């Protein structure tokens, strides 16, 4: 993790509703202070943003336009090996989740998720 205590986080999801929901939950009192380093709606944007802002945490959708989550994880982990990535996906098949973990993601959360589930997953990731 980063040297200073304040963590930065990037949210990658093609749905604006999901992006806003995650951002709102992260700002809540349950989690330690986390700066939102950026929001990305597709994989290519996510890679660019990650290069600039070097976030500590990322929530990542798998099915996205331009560059899908799996490829995106692979590219980001390549230059940010310490960054923890939480896959947040509606895909039901576990094979995809397993491939994402294999490529470097640290956690997995099924859509649809409750507020509590997301917070638990993020806390586990920071832990």
């Amino acid at each position, binding site marked *: 993790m980063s040297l200073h205590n304040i963590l930065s986080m990037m949210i990658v999801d093609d749905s604006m509703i999901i992006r806003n929901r995650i951002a709102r939950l992260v700002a809540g009192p349950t989690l330690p202070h986390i700066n939102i380093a950026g929001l990305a709606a597709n994989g290519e944007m996510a890679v660019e943003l990650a290069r600039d802002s070097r976030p500590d945490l990322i929530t990542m959708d798998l099915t996205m336009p331009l560059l899908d989550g799996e490829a995106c994880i692979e590219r980001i982990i390549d230059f940010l090996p310490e960054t923890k990535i939480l896959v947040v996906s509606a895909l039901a098949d576990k*094979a995809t989740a397993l491939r994402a973990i294999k490529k470097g993601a640290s956690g997995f959360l099924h859509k649809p998720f409750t507020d509590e589930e997301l917070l638990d997953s993020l806390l586990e990731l920071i832990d």
Partner: protein
Amino acid sequence: MKTLLASLFGKYRDLVLAIGIFLLLDAGVSAINIYTSRQIEADASRINAAGLLRTYAQQLTKGLLTLEMDLRNGQRTQSSLAEISEARLGFDDARLALEKKLAQPSALPLIEPESLRQHAQELLASVVRTWEPIDREVGPLIVNADPDPESAARAVQKAVTRNNRLTQQADDLSETLTEMANKKTSTVRLIQAIAISLAFLNFAFILFKFIGRLAASDRQTAAAREETERILGSVREGLFLLTSKRTVGGQRSQSLDRIFGQQLQPGADFLAFLGRLTSTANAEAARDYIDLLFNKKMKQSLLEQLNPLVEIELLAEQRTKKSPSYLTFEFNQIRENGQVVALLVTVFDVSQKVRLEHQLAGAEARADNEIALLLGILDHNPHEVADFLSRARDTLQLINGELQSIQPLRQPYPQMVNRIARIVHGLKGEAATLGCSSISRAAHAFEDILQPLRGRNDLAGDDLIPVAVALSTLLSEIVKVEAVVKRVQHFAGGKSDAPPPDPLGDSLRRIEQYALRVAEDLNKQVRFEAAVPRLDHLPPALASVLREAVPQLVRNAIAHGIEAPADRLRHGKPATGLVRVELTSEADGTLTMTIHDDGCGLSVEQLRGVLIERELYSPAEVAALSDAQVIATLFEAGVSSLDSAHQHAGRGDGLAVVKAALRDLGGRLRVNSRANSHTRFIMQIKPA
């Protein structure tokens, strides 16, 4: 290492102790042996010294006698003096050595009793006392080179008188010392014997204890193995260990072979086995998952939700009749010193569970259907639905009676099948109009059974068995819906008994709903228009037409007339097709009902083709028909311009039903059409 040693000492403490004692005893015996050999040496030298005292005393006496003789004979005295001197010195040396040896108190009083030593000292002292007077006489004698005979004679006298006593005393001393040595030897031997016996006892103890321990441990191991075998033999789940090399361990439950329907050999490559058992996708996901399981950094909570081998379906070719079709695998990490060294794999046969879940899902879908049925009916006047249902039931029961009392004549069978087909088709349309979708589905299924029988002239009684079965299915569906409707009517408390204020409008609204549903099912877009006068009550003939003929014609208009939206746009028409129903009444009471659509129109050429293709007419017969005659065939049973039957069209019975209904009412049916423009069916009903 430390803990290993501690446990070793803990478990084998008494053995280690016993072996220690054994070694100690051995060392003790060896020490005693060494000590004894030293003592024997010392004892021998003491006995030897005592012997020397005797020898030198006698040598001195002999020397003195020789000296006296030499002096008497005037011979030279040097050699006798030298002998005397040597004997005196030898005696003194032996005496001093012996005194020194006996002065030391015994190192081991048990072995060499103090009393014996003191006794020996006393004996030595008495030897010395006897010796000293002789020594006093001899001393001055040997100092002189030329001794006087008197002194010599005195010395001889002293020596001779004391010689016997001295010899006796030296012998006593020697005997005592020998006795001491003997006693010591026998004591040491006794100690040795005791020590060796103890060592033997100890050895026997070790042996007994060790063998006993070994046997007990063997028994324990055997019992544990037996227990393990019993567990593995009777547990219902499949159990085995998966090594870090992804191979199957040696111990496995017997149920495994039954669960897999094939042998999973110890040492087998598990991933390859899985690849034969289930789909490639499953096997690949399993490989990724097992890799994660062997990664000690992965979190348990994450691993639990990622297991892909939950309720996996086995490949059909791997299954036998009795073997399971769905399996769930559970993996438990076995950690040693923080490392995952193996996985405990538990395999569950979940076929029954999956089957039940499927059944439950099916039951839920059916329940949903039944709710949809209820809602569909509630959209309509229960009175009307009940009326339809009771008519339908009566009609079908009539047919049922006919089927049961059929005569073994061939001729009526094809006609009968055609009649049943027309009735069922009519029921299907009415049921759909009234929202009774389950009945219209059952009627459609019935038509599927009737279809292959139509046009066959070689029908036998046996061919009608499936017809009877389908009929009873349709009947039971009707009875079921009837029961529901009765409950609804009962619930409404008879309030719906009042006739609707606008019966014609109600009927047309129902027909509109039906039209829109048909269009939706066929992926077409339709706008429904009605231009009718308001009527307070429906003449029976019109009610019949609205119930039977109009839905058929509207359905035909959408299924055959209105084109798909894309086709319509290509022909320069709006995507949404128009179906229009008009009713006019003339002064004489004649009613004219028109069903108009702006679809593709009737194509006489296409119809000719269909007639030939369906082998309803020979090509020559078709060629001989006029266009009007070709169009007239539309009203014959079994002609449809569509290639395949779906629920809304294609069997060719719709127009036959309409024609039959109108004929019963004494009405007329005309058709008017232009290609790519419109089709219009016009029904005229004269007042009764």
